[in-house]
């Protein structure tokens, strides 16, 4: 009995050694072919996209998905890669984003992720992504804390709120001259982060600030609007649900309040938020005004109709991932999470769809990012305000 056990163990050990030898010889073969410069010509990989495809901001999620698909198809054609996009619908809910991320991290063919869209979602999934060693690039999450070092594989192609908050606050002070204003957060990380950035600037300028707070689930703003005084000529809404801001604007009109709404990038939704005279800041430029983007604009409009500023940053994020995968393949390697992450960190694009270079600092932030300001006209059009 003992003898048979020894033989069986030896046989298993021999098989294991044989297996290791053959895999190491495979990798040697791969390295050797890489070294000769021919690269990995069968460049296949999957990229996950986490976006609010359904839910309260589905129009933005749809736009993000469309631009990700456009980027993948254009990059596959240019780089001769076979990258496939795997969709994950987060509905802008952190709990949903966690479920999608768990699905993605357990799918070994997915080497990187674009998204998620919301800062609170990034907070929910950041450590999962880090544990899986998966690079994830957001085209819209702007909360400052996201790049404090907690999420080592997180990147973003947009500026953070420490840029948006002060820029918006300074614009309000210099151009709208309020003696008093109301600022209402929606109790989410994105919103409270922006309020924290803007509040000290308003107070330092001597503006009387009424800071209020309502949940995203609230739809009745009549009592809050009644509180807007005649002196409060601006109401700042750093919100994510454009439909809520639209209702707030309606209540302002119904109660004959003259305050102007100033929204942040979460309200950029020309199909939903159309209160005339309102301002909306955005991390994304109007790419229809960038000559170099003319062909992308034409293709996107032909395929998907009109779009706002949420799609182009996701195009940029997807392009970063695609180029990272292509560079790994050119080096003769098979794309995996580790080498794609390393390639993303080295990203250095001199131009992009956003009209600016893309490179990341050591925290994952976009180097030299900007914010853009729009005003809503009487026809509902978002008109860019020049710097």
């Amino acid at each position, binding site marked *: 009995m003992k003898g048979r056990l020894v033989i069986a163990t030896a046989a298993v050990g021999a098989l294991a050694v044989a297996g290791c030898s053959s895999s190491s010889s495979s990798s040697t073969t791969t390295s050797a072919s890489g070294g000769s410069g021919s690269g990995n010509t069968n460049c296949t990989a999957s990229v996950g996209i986490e976006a609010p495809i*359904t*839910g*309260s901001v*589905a*129009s933005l999620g749809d736009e993000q998905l469309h631009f990700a698909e456009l980027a993948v198809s254009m990059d596959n054609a240019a780089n001769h890669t076979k990258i496939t996009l795997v969709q994950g619908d987060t*509905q802008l809910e952190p709990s949903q984003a966690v479920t999608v991320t768990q699905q993605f991290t357990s799918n070994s063919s997915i080497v990187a992720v674009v998204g998620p869209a919301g800062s609170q979602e990034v907070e929910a999934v950041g450590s999962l992504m880090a544990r899986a060693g998966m690079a994830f690039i957001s085209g819209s999450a702007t909360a400052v804390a996201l790049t404090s070092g907690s999420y080592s594989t997180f990147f973003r192609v947009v500026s953070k709120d420490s840029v948006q908050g002060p820029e918006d606050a300074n614009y309000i002070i210099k151009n709208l001259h309020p003696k008093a204003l109301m600022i*209402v957060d929606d109790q989410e990380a994105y919103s409270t982060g922006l309020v924290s950035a803007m509040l000290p600037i308003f107070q330092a300028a001597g503006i009387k600030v009424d800071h*209020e*707070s*309502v949940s995203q*689930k609230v*739809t*009745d703003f*009549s*009592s*809050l609007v*009644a*509180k807007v005084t005649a002196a409060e000529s601006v109401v700042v809404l750093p919100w994510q*649900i454009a*439909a*809520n801001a*639209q*209702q707030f604007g*309606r209540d302002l*009109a*119904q*109660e*004959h309040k003259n305050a102007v709404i100033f929204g942040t990038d979460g309200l950029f939704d020309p199909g*939903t938020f159309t209160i005339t005279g309102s301002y909306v800041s955005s991390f994304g430029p109007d790419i229809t005004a960038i000559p170099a983007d003319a062909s992308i604009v034409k293709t996107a409009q032909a395929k998907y109709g009109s779009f706002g500023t949420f799609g182009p940053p996701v195009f940029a994020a997807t392009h970063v991932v695609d180029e990272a995968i292509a560079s790994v393949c050119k080096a003769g390697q098979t794309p995996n999470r580790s080498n794609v992450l390393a390639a993303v960190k080295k990203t250095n694009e001199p131009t992009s769809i956003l009209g600016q270079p893309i490179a990341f600092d050591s925290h994952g932030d976009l180097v030299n990012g900007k914010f853009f300001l729009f005003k809503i006209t009487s026809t509902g059009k978002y008109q860019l305000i020049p710097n």
Partner: protein
Amino acid sequence: MGFFFQELVNGVTTGALYALIALGFSMVYGVLKLLNFAHGDLYMVGAYIGFFVIQFFGGAAHVNIPVPLLLVIMFVLAAGLVGGLGVAIERFAYRPLRDAPRIAPLITAIGISFFLENSALLLFGAQYRIYNTSEFISFSSGIQIGSVSIDSVQIMVVVLGAALMLGLRLLVNRTRLGKQMRAVAADREAAEMLGINVDFTIAATFFLGSALAGVAGVMAGLLFNQVTNTIGFIAGLKAFTAAVVGGIGSLPGAMLGGLLIGIAESFVTGYISSTFTNLIVFGLLIVVMLVRPSGLLGRAQLQKV
């Protein structure tokens, strides 16, 4: 002073909504001693029905029938369909558990709530559906008294809400059906022995309570413009609070509780801060329960020995 009255107008409007939903809670509790946690979701279904009626008649910007007729169709359809849904829920989910331990129908009610919420999600998606009320009811059709603005929709909600509450009170106190409902609420077995069709009476109670929730849903859509599958949860919770504060099982109590909750929310938002609204409203519930456990207009339950 204008600010005080503006907040009062806003509070009474919201309170009327809560009162209509709370009435359904109280009616069902009265006859079955069941807290129907699916009741808030019936309000949600009513809101969706109103939205789709608007779309059927051309959409908010291009309504192709007179607006008063549109409103009547919205309210009648919501009342009828949601009332019918309430009857169906009672027949298939609660009736079989009538003599089961009280926890069983309670758990079922929670299950029905999730079922309705997720059915709406599957059928209608998670996108907000927007009534765009101002496209067919102009703001200028309201009234302005000094600095107090009262929207025509607010006037309609309060007037219709008051009329429905009065109508229900008359039905319960002055009609044969009402007498049967009171008899079943007092003692189901005795009512049955006296020849009252208990099943029909309970079904009628569910129909009426659910119809009121459906009407409240349409009102909410007109007032707040947005409908999504989750609006029933918070509204149901507030209406439940209103019913308990007023005295669960008491119809006048439900009306009073609804108005109190609506006004409290409005004044807390206006005079303290919107951050504290839910804290204070639910704190009010706790205080009332400690001071008067049967609610403001409820009667202490006598235990037979």
